[in-house]
């Protein structure tokens, strides 16, 4: 086979898939080319298990196809992170031998990050849980599904019969219908405790956006059309909630324009990937991003560069904020605190206000990070100040995918009593923090049973030992994890879910331009083990509980729920099935002119198209619909809450006690900066061999943790690159290797941030998530707490 033909046969067609199945003959060269994909699964076990020997059960793992077989390409959605990238899996003889990006999917247009490419590893991973587990005699033991379900439903039934339905809490890491199913389950059962259990703001907006704009859905950042991008903190390119989409938008804003490339300024303590891709990198002290935003705001206001039209028409409480900012946030004072020179603050403020559309990115965009709610609000208010809210090149409020909601749930008196109780979590983006506060004494009743549904609250970013200790107090813990993560290890019952390549699921998301997207996840192959779809397990539990709970989830399986729900999309006759990139302007222009560009056909055709192409989207954003973007009671952008928070959070930054750089607590001289890595991003990457190996490129150190130090700090500590050190905070200690890095800011120790998850049975080596154990969740001095780590100090000692 010629190289040309070979590449053709191994890549998905960019044409609309009609038939998904073709026969292929495999030659030696084909097998050679498959090595990085299928062969990687067992081959990488050598690194996964290194230096441990291969476990016996791996012998029953996947084998390479040894003869000609039937090849099928199947569309689905990656579940490695919240990005929602479309992928196409290549199946030969029932085995996944590779994945590629789906070129029709508007989020990633055929591109995949290392996590997406590692998707087969999730399915074939040796540490997967193979069936239900029930804790007996202090240990998790294999059980039948009937036994495990009876154990959980029996307890739930018992709590309900004692009018304690409200003491059941569900920490939800899903989005879309699976989340709706959980909501219906709890509403019928009688618990108000539906807690957001994802570290990402991909299904609920961040608290800053909610406060200032009153929105109920996350925001999109129209980087593609921005002329000026100002990023605060870390990882907007490598660690946002949709890294491939963000990288694509960045490319379009830069190389995609013949003239007037977007200008990018990045504030961060270290020279990161994002910093290296900016026109200007400005090192600052971690945790001072909010103060810097207010300093920039001061200059914009002082020089009258704000967008008066937007503020007058759509702003509220602006004068209050204006007075405080002009009084307290003089660039000189802000410079002292942030480490950014005064001249730089003045220059960048002028640029930001004059080169519009300009957009400011904080952790509200990036996802989990170091910034408090106040800091996020200050950064986001910069967008309003230059009129970049619900405007091209600014912060957008994507419309919801028009799926049909699940039927309204009925409950009985017991349920109503439960629902009337105060909830543990109010749907905030930092629900685990709320749960933690509740468990640590802030709650008015104990949580008796916790369902970790698509979430690992004990290992979730920013968790650490404190969260684990608090959750161990819950008398009965149920995990739905596919892997033995932190929560599953502590659970009383584990009801293992399929992996994302083995099940039906919707994946509602949006593009950076605010176009709603509905990706369809479908089973690429039959479940490898005795696992079940978590939403279906909830329905089984509901049947076990009986009464209104059983009646709330009457469907046969999740596919039925999905098919029923997408009827709303079909009925809307809007948008388009995923199509080639050239289709976007066609659909957009047609709909903008009031014409239907629909290629949806009959419902059966629509469903078949959804599954074959990977989903639906509606590539139009109507900037006129301000009621969607400004949902505060006043219908305006509320500057007032920021003014109040600023007064409380940074009292007298320019004149009072907070003047100057943040001071280190005694004995902890270095500020901790946790930064994301594209390869270790998401909430399921911890056990993936490839991902861990990719990290080796960082410093020839796979499966380990490192800490970056500026050369002067390294000299003071007497350590060189590769030296074993102990990094210690008030929360705990981890071991790491030192990495002396010219791009690090003196006074700051930077560590890679990995996802939660304990070491597995096979992959026993240390993992990156240890770094988050150092972070001081909820222990900042700021009034409005969030899951933040920007106020963590550490000391380093030679190991």
């Amino acid at each position, binding site marked *: 086979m010629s190289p040309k033909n070979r590449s053709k046969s191994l890549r998905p067609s960019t044409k609309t898939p009609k038939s998904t199945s073709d026969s292929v003959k495999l030659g030696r060269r084909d097998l050679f080319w498959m090595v990085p994909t299928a062969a990687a699964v067992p081959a990488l076990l050598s690194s996964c298990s290194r230096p441990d020997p291969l476990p016996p059960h791996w012998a029953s793992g996947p084998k390479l196809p040894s003869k000609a077989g039937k090849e099928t390409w199947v569309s689905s959605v990656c579940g490695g992170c919240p990005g929602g990238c479309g992928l196409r899996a290549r199946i030969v003889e029932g085995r996944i031998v590779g994945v590629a990006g789906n070129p029709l999917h508007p989020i990633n247009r055929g591109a995949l990050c290392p996590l997406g490419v590692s998707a087969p590893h999730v399915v074939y991973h040796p540490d997967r849980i193979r069936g239900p587990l029930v804790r007996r005699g202090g240990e998790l033991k294999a059980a039948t599904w009937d036994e495990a379900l009876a154990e959980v439903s029996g307890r739930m039934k018992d709590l309900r019969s004692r009018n304690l339905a409200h003491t059941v809490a569900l920490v939800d890491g899903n989005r879309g219908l699976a989340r709706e199913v959980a909501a219906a389950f709890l509403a019928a059962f009688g618990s108000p405790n539906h807690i957001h259990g994802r570290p990402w703001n991909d299904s609920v907006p961040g608290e800053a956006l909610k406060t200032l704009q009153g929105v109920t859905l996350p925001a999109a950042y129209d980087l593609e059309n921005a002329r000026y991008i100002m990023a605060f903190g870390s990882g907007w390119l490598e660690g946002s909630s949709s890294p491939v989409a963000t990288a694509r938008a960045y490319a379009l804003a830069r190389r995609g324009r013949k003239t007037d490339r977007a200008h990018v300024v990045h504030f961060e303590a270290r020279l990161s990937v994002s910093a290296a891709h900016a026109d200007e990198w400005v090192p600052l002290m971690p945790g001072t991003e909010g103060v810097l935003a207010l300093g920039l705001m001061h200059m914009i206001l002082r020089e009258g560069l704000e967008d008066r039209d937007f503020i007058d028409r759509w702003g509220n409480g602006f004068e209050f904020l204006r007075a405080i900012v002009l009084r307290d946030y003089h660039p000189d004072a802000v410079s002292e605190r942030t480490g950014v020179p005064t001249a730089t603050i003045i220059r960048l403020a002028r640029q930001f206000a004059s080169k519009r559309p300009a957009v400011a990115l904080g952790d509200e965009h990036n996802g989990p990070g170091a910034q408090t709610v106040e800091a996020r609000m200050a950064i986001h208010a910069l967008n309003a100040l230059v009129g970049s809210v619900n405007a091209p090149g600014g912060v957008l409020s994507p419309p919801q995918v028009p799926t049909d909601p699940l039927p309204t749930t009925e409950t009985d008196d017991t349920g109503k009593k439960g629902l009337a109780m105060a909830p543990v979590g109010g749907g905030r983006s930092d629900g685990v923090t709320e749960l933690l506060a509740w468990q640590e004494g802030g709650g008015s009743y104990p949580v008796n049973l916790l369902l970790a549904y698509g979430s690992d609250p004990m290992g979730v970013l920013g968790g650490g030992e404190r969260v684990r200790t608090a959750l161990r107090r819950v008398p009965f813990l149920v995990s739905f994890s596919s892997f033995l993560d932190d929560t599953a290890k502590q659970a009383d019952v584990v009801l293992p879910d399929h992996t994302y390549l083995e099940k039906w699921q919707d994946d509602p998301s949006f593009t950076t331009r605010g176009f709603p997207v509905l990706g369809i996840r479908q089973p690429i192959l039959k479940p490898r083990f005795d696992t079940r779809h978590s939403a279906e397990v909830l329905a089984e539990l509901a049947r076990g509980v009986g009464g209104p709970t059983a009646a709330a989830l009457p469907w046969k399986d999740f596919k039925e729920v999905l098919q029923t729900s997408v009827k709303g999309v079909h009925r809307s006759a809007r948008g388009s099935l995923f199509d080639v990139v050239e289709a976007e302007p066609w659909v957009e222009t047609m709909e903008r002119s009031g014409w239907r560009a629909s290629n949806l056909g009959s419902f059966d055709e629509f469903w078949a198209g959804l599954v074959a192409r990977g989903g639906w989207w509606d590539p139009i954003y109507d900037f006129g*619909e301000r009621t969607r973007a400004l949902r505060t009671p006043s219908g305006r952008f509320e500057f007032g809450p920021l003014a109040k928070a600023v007064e409380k959070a940074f009292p007298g930054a320019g004149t009072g006690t907070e003047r100057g750089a943040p001071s280190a607590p005694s004995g902890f001289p270095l500020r901790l900066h946790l930064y994301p890595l594209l390869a270790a991003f998401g909430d399921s990457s911890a056990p993936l061999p490839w991902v861990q190996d990719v990290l080796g490129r960082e410093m020839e150190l796979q499966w380990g943790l490192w800490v970056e130090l500026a050369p002067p700090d390294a000299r003071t500590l007497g350590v060189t690159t590769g030296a074993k050190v102990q990094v210690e905070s008030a929360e705990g200690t981890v071991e790491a290797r030192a990495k002396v890095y010219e791009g690090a800011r003196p006074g700051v120790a930077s560590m890679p941030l990995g996802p939660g998850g304990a070491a597995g049975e096979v992959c026993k080596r240390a993992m990156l998530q240890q770094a988050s154990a150092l972070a001081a969740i909820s222990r900042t001095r700021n009034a409005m707490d969030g899951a933040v780590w920007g106020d963590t100090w550490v000391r380093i000692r030679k190991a």
Partner: protein
Amino acid sequence: MSRWLRGLLALGLVAMSTSAFAADAPVRGDVRRGWDAFISKACVRCHAIWGHGGEIGPDLGRTRAGGLTDAELAAAMWNHIPRMWDKKQEEGIPHVAISETEMADLFAYLSFVRALDEPGDPKTGQVLLKEKKCSTCHTVTDEGHGVAPDLRKWAKYRNPAVWAQVMFEHAGKMVEEMKARGITPPTLESADLVHIVSYVRSLSASSDSELLDPGDPVLGEKLFHERKCIQCHSIRGQGGNVGPDLGRRGWVTSFTDVTVKAWNRVGGMRNAMAQRKVEPPKLTPQEMAHIVSFLFASSYADPPGSAERGARLLKDKSCLQCHGAGIGPSLEDFRGRAGPVTVTQALWMHGPTMLERMRDLGIRWPSFTGEEMRDLAAALNEAQPQKGPGPDAPKK
């Protein structure tokens, strides 16, 4: 002749004279499929639509104002083809086959996109609403108390056909009210309405929007007769003579322009209807879309060509030097089915070979006007063209 018979005859004549689609292609083009073909046949690699696509060829969504008839489009393609082939070879763009159905779809698509308007400017729309005194009666803010409906209710309508339907339905009351208040009904330009719609859209309180399927000219033609529009209006001289001829060339430039032209004459139209005791027709927005589409198509329909002139052209343009002379294929296959679409499709399929042979033989690539293309089609439809060398015949 009875009135009924006259109507039937008018219907037949209108159908013949206005349907470039029906008279020309054996299959009618479909806008949506045309768009698919535009992408899948790689037209988009060279040509853009509304600025999206390749930059090698011209933007086909922004051709000259008023659009082209099918024959003019076919002529433009014919004249452009030697450059197109050369450019394709230069860029390494493979030649893909296009069937007659696909070509008809492409023609329908290109006709449709030229009838759409560029997005309006809400700020201009706001000014116009005041200037044209619309805001004297209509409110657009919570403070206003106009006698006419709050225009924000119409924010969900982006489609010019829906505006046409709504304005037409309320025209009677509107005219009476304006008369009572001594307001002269404003005269609008096409772009005015585009800006006003854009402004009203920007006042929307929700994401609701009413979308219509692209209008079908054939259904529109049917409705035009069923709803008795033909009693007052003619299409290229066939029909009533109370109102203007709606089939005359280029009287509208876009779908919105149809709405605007109707609005500007709405007073007179209502009076004429009242005098004749004709009830204003009730139309749904989608029906209006069909009619608007029909009127736009009628305005750019090709009149019949002259077979005589066509036969002369075949000779004068050296076509018969090859066709029917044993070098090129016989043109007999076109009999009864020749038209802009079939000729363009044949050109697309055989053009590269033809061009190569002509270059070998030293024959200059002939150029045609739209009218000549119509004549050519008429000649091909009627009879076997005569053999004989043309004035450009190569000297052997």
